[in-house]
């Protein structure tokens, strides 16, 4: 389907210069070369030498053939003189049949439409739709019989050839990137999710559900603990606030409240004393002296350290020479460790390739497995109330196989109507300034 046109040799890549006039001339020459050899107009021009002579018999109306009658109907909008001349034209033998037939008088819009190549193809496609409405060319998509070339295939070929001419590049081949995920398309639920499960399966399913709940609880607890550590008292703050609010709202409702008015300071935290400003913490003094003396001292220290390091290195070298066997063993061990790391990396890569890919903003979250508690199990199929939704399952399955990226609903943003108001200052001077 995508073979290059064998008639045309592979075109070289054009080196376009900045000189626009020359470039255009070159391009137009190439375009001329690509066009079909002989248009009908050129043929007529060549054969007739540029002149047409109406050799119809004078005084006698030529009997129009059926074809010419039909053509006359089609080109009815044209002027009578031209149509008469064109219809009376005698075809030269060497001309291809139908060369003298005049095209239907096109409106300006139609001409413009037909001149553009892509639109021409769209017209082809539109024409193809008429026979598409009847049904596909053949129901036997994978049959061994040679399929009649449908207009769809021709269109694609045309499109591809056109693209090749313009871009001078071969079309991109199909790349099959699917099938890397090992997850099944229709995941079957665990045995405990049967409508009438066995004890063992049901227990296992509940255990799994409990595990996930506990994980969630532990995460919430950890967050709570972190909050407490950084902002102590916030955990109880909401509750205390609610209690204080209730107390305030209920103040004076009951007799006993009027006695304890002085306890209104419960809300205020007694431990924090806001009366005096707190002192800033003391600045830690460094042992290093600053200034020129310090720089000299530092340089000296550095030189000594460097010397010591050099001595150490030389000593170590001599020692190492005696430890060659052990060193070789060390090298072997590090190579093995490197090998193991490489294997782990490859395994991780393979797992990554077969698992769910991270596409976009949100991570894929495995859906919670649906389960029924012991007292919710149905005694019969008729009394079963289904859990879960298979539509959600389908979407999750696509996301798991990286065919769709996980999306979240955008929060509904409330739009407030614009209010118009005038600045206070402007209002006062409105009469004067007239703004």
């Amino acid at each position, binding site marked *: 389907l995508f073979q290059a046109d064998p008639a045309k040799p592979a075109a070289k890549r054009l080196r376009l210069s900045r000189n626009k006039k020359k470039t255009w001339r070159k391009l137009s020459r190439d375009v001329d070369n690509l066009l079909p050899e002989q248009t009908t107009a050129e043929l007529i021009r060549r054969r007739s030498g540029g002149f047409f002579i109406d050799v119809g018999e004078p005084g006698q109306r030529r009997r129009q053939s059926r074809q010419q009658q039909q053509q006359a109907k089609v080109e009815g909008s044209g002027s009578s003189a031209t149509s008469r001349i064109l219809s009376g034209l005698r075809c030269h033998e060497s001309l291809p049949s139908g060369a003298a037939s005049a095209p239907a008088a096109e409106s300006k819009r139609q001409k413009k439409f037909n001149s553009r190549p892509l639109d021409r193809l769209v017209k082809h*496609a539109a024409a193809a*739709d008429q026979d*598409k*409405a009847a049904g596909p060319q053949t*129901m036997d*998509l*994978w049959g061994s019989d040679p399929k009649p070339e*449908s207009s769809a*295939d021709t*269109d*694609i070929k045309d499109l*591809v050839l056109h693209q090749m001419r313009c871009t001078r590049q071969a079309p*991109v*081949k*199909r*790349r099959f*990137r699917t099938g890397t995920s090992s997850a*099944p*398309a*229709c995941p*079957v*639920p*665990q*045995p405990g*999710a*049967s*409508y*009438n*499960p*066995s*004890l*063992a*399966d049901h*227990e296992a399913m509940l*255990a799994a559900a*409990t*595990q996930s709940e506990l994980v969630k609880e532990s995460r919430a607890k950890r967050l709570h603990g972190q909050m407490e550590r950084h902002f102590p008292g916030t955990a109880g703050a909401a509750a205390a606030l609610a209690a204080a609010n209730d107390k305030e709202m209920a103040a004076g409702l009951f007799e006993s409240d009027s006695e304890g008015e002085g306890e209104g300071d419960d809300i205020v935290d007694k431990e924090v004393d806001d009366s005096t400003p707190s002192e800033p913490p003391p600045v830690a003094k460094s042992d290093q002296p600053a200034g020129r003396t310090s720089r000299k001292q530092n340089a000296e220290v550095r030189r000594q350290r460097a010397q010591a390091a050099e001595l150490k290195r030389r000593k170590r070298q001599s020692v190492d020479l005696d430890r060659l066997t052990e060193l070789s063993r060390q090298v072997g061990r590090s190579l093995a460790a490197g090998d193991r790391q490489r294997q782990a990396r490859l395994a991780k890569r393979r797992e990554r390739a077969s698992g769910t*890919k991270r*596409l*976009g*903003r949100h991570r894929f979250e495995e859906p919670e497995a649906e389960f029924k508690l*012991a007292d919710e*199990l149905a*005694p*019969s*199929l*008729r009394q*079963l109330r*289904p859990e*879960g*939704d*298979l*539509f*959600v399952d*389908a*979407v999750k*399955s696509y996301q798991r196989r*990286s065919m769709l*990226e996980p*999306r979240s609903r955008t929060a509904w943003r409330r739009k407030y109507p614009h209010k118009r108001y005038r600045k206070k200052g402007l209002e006062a001077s409105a009469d004067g300034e007239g703004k």
Partner: protein
Amino acid sequence: TCPAASLQSAPSKMTKMKKKFTRGEATTFISRKQALKRLQLSLNDFRRLCILKGVYPQEPVNRRRVNKGSSTPKVYYHLKDIQFLGHERVMQKLRDIKAHLKKAKRAKERGEMHTVDRLQRNFPAYTLDHIIRERYPAFEDAVRDLDDCLCLCFLFSRLPKERGVPVEQIRLSARLTVQFLHWVIAARALRKVFVSIKGYYFEADVNGVSVVWSVPHQLGLHDPADVDFKILRTFNEFYTTMLGFVNYRLYSSLGLAYPPALANEVDPSDYCQTGEAHEEFMASLNQPLLSRRGGEAEGNPAEPDDFPDEEAEGAEAASAARRKARAQQRLFNGCRFFLNRETPRQILCFVIRSCGGEVSWSPLSGPGSRYPESDQRVTHQIVDRPLGDSRLSGRAYVQPQWVFDCVNSGSLLPTGDYAPGLPPPPHLSPFAAYSADDADGGDEAAQLPYSATRSAPPDPVELRRPSAAAELEEEDDDEAEDAAKREAAAADAAQVGKQQKKQKKPSVVAEGTQRRTQDAKQAAAEERRLREMMLPKKHKQLYKKMVFSRKRQARESAQLAEKKQKRQRTA
């Protein structure tokens, strides 16, 4: 040597500076926004095109490199994939549709209804045949993707009309799924059935490939907020086209005519109009289909081939599977079923006919009934509610689960266990791998139904049966005590589970489901003892309670099972 000298000896020509992000991953991936600009499509159209062509987003190894240093989360596609999309004719069609809709909207707002009508009549249409041929060059590729296709088509066939999905699409999905079910019936290709709380899960053998699909329960669907129906519609559009071609191929392999036609004349007078008769009777799944050469299609199920000279490794398992498949194909040969109104009619009809049985139902339930309830040749009647005295002789009354369990096991199970009103044996999943131990009944307590330990309220009608009454009486004696204990055990289990879940997983029952060698058992027991010792004091009490209650439950269920067996032996 001095470093300056080495520089001077280097060649004077400088190499070009390597610019970042001009090669490698940065050039092979393209973000979605860039792809939209390149293809000049709207986001919705782009999504549709990607779904139709099977172009999916990719994850680059190093996102920073692709994003030129930034780490904003973006959706990336392979550049070559997007270039490939550019050749697609359907893309132009999508643009045409957009232009068409714009014109229609303008005409409608101007009040030019004749223009609107004209535009609606000439709505641009496109076909996906060439895309299907390109994505699945061989029939086997399409069969491998059949899981997805069937799941979605079955889901869409059950949608109500108000969901915003075009009615034609729903009806097309329904038609195609019914055609596929007819093929499975004709080919006797059904191998597994699993009834879960989510829906029915089936597995069939299509040309040697196991195809698994799900069917939702008959009750109303939820209204999921997270589901984007526009995207699912595009998937469904593609899959319905594909299923049509797949059905044609499957039907022609069996010698059936496609589009399918009913072999016998049907009388739709009571049920529907003549125009809908074909669809309604096809959907009843109870009519034979016309074969290609005319006349009723002969039941020639594709029998699995016999390969006596096979490698020893997988030979046993493979031959066992083949034997089971053959048994399943002839399972209900000679059985005549009658379905009561409260049973899931379409599902049961499909399963029973796929295994060679004959089905019928009351004419009031729907079209397709073949013989009345009073027919003498009926061997089994499927009921799902407590029965009175009105039982006909010569037939067994069973719950629907009997049918499913028979298919899964490949043999006719004793009908006494599935009598209406009694809690049936557990419905085990054929998709899960149970070890050989369970087949021998290794741990009876493990495989007992949950209902045996529950205090099910006794049905007053059923108490008239002497055996059932005796059983229930014995249960009633210590019911109150048991209930309390059971609740305590459940509460304990929950509490303990919450407090020390990481340390101990209850494995009293699970142990029985795995075969362990003596050493492994010992090692496991030692490990468990160690962990028990490490429990904090507070939790030890609760743990002890939990273990005690579990052991008691297991003992009770074992006793019940023994009683049942004794009664069965005497009865």
